[in-house]
């Protein structure tokens, strides 16, 4: 579904991402992990056309650079880490913004668009909130509203930038379970992830980035080794491989 070949991104002369190559199959969930500043977010932003890059990126067999802005937005939906959520906008109006790439330049939403937004809200149990203002939602509800906007885009690829920041433990699990279940509807997911234990349980595959380059890639139990985490995060951890995934426990030195 996604194929990156030697993707590099430069910011003001420094290379933020170096030679990243990556393949993501349809309905797979790949998580990008790595210490702060490793270039995880930059990879996501390049994929949805927000950053210029060298190398090549393919989405469903089509080169990203050759796609128009609207075409790209129909193929890939981004949930940013800190989305702007105008407090006065209703949940329904916000979800309808996701229909933008499907609308003609001057068009307003038609029946199909309302139906798509309604499906997205229904999928995320947000229909009772449709007429509420974004400003009145709790953190978990707000995160679901942002997901609803991305789902309303009806793109086959979903990019999530740190989807669990600022959520409590229960809401983190809720959101990740939701995303996991969405894959059953045919979505391919790429996300960045801070929390390694959550990454070890929900990802099909992990890609560890350090200073812009891929340093390890594979199943969670292989990537999340104490040696890797000491080398790239400078962290002292114990790793437990148990039922349900790989658990990373920080241990005091």
């Amino acid at each position, binding site marked *: 579904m996604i194929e990156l070949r030697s993707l590099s991104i430069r910011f003001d002369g420094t290379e933020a991402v170096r030679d990243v190559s990556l393949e993501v199959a349809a309905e797979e969930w790949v998580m990008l992990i790595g210490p702060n500043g490793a270039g995880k977010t930059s990879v996501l932003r390049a994929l949805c056309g927000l950053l210029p890059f060298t190398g090549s990126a393919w989405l469903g067999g089509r080169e990203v650079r050759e796609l128009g802005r609207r075409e790209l937005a129909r193929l890939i939906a*981004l949930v940013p880490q800190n989305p702007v959520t*105008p407090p*006065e906008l209703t949940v329904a109006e916000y979800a309808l*913004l996701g229909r933008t790439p499907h609308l003609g330049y001057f068009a307003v939403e038609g029946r199909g668009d309302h139906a798509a937004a*309604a499906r997205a809200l229904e999928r995320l149990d947000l229909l009772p909130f449709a007429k509420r203002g974004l400003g009145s939602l709790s953190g978990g509800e707000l995160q679901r509203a942002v997901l609803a906007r991305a789902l309303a885009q009806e793109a086959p690829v979903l990019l999530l930038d740190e989807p669990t920041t600022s959520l409590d433990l229960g809401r983190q699990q809720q959101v990740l379970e939701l995303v996991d279940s969405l894959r059953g509807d045919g979505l391919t997911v790429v996300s960045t992830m801070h929390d390694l234990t959550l990454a070890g349980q929900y990802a099909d595959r992990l890609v560890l980035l350090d200073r812009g380059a891929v340093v390890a890639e594979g199943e969670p139990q292989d990537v999340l080794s104490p040696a890797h985490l000491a080398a790239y995060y400078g962290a002292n951890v114990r790793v437990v491989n148990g039922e349900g995934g790989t658990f990373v426990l920080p241990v005091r030195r």
Partner: protein
Amino acid sequence: MAVVSAEAAVRARGVPRPWRLIAGAFLAGSLLVGLGVGPVGIGVGGIVESALSHVPFLHVHTPLSSLEEAVLWQIRAPRVVLAAIVGGMLAIAGSAYQGVFHNPLADPYLLGVAAGSGLGATLAIAYGHVGTSGQLLPLASFVGGLTAVAAAYALGRSAGAVRAAGALVLAGLTVTLFFTAVQTFVQQQHTNTLRDVYSWLLGGFSTATWSQVAVAAPYVAVSSLAIVLHRRVLDVLSVGDEEAASLGVNVSRLRLLIVVAATAGTAAAVAVSGLIAFVGIIVPHTIRLLVSTSYRAVVPLSLVVGAGFLVLADVLARTVVSPAELPIGVVTAFFGAPFFAVVLRTSRSMR
């Protein structure tokens, strides 16, 4: 299915029906007040019957004397219509600037557009000898206004985030001061045309004619149509440039297009009415407070309510110190400045 019935709940609010009626009634009432009030008072019935008498095949006879007829249709009607066109334009342009610059304090006057348009027009009058009612005036005014808004935006961006309301307004003020200085210089060099320019700059509709209406109307029509068509995209922009881009919007092209449209309309308004401040702040913000902050409501309602607002302001301008007249800019500033202070205070909590 549940989803089918749920679709009714998944709607953008747009302009709620009660507010359509209220805005329409406000405009109609303002027009009647504007036509009826003056040294020669004319009742509502008289205005309506006289208007109907001009419709062919209705065979309604006007109850007005020929003097009243002349006052109504040759003096007051062009004045009221011109005030409505200009007011609607300034208000809808204000809402458009606020949307594309993510800035609650953006206004045609504060961004320097009005001063730029004024300078453009002054140069045309002083050097181009086009007269104060020529067809070229809006064009000169447009070039000046576009230069000013480009300068203000560039300056505001280099001084800090354009989202920071203060930076853009200070940049607009800087541009305004500079353009006003050039303006004064040009006027001093051309004392023969100074009186013309001065009376025009002060702003107002006391010399309004149907030909001025004809000069401004096409620009205002095209410009406000363009802005109304972009009302949904303005909502998309409210999630910020980057997210709007990830939704497939070409943000910089869109910003350019809307700024050009709003500036063209503002320039035409300035060309026929001089400099009138604050309409672009008062009207959109009142709508945000009363109706909704969605541009689907703010944009179309600004056009209608702005038209009514400036007609009423013009009625005040010509009646308060009657038989003399106040410049209309004085009236709008009298209400607008305190209102601006309120918006400035609340905008700290806005993004």
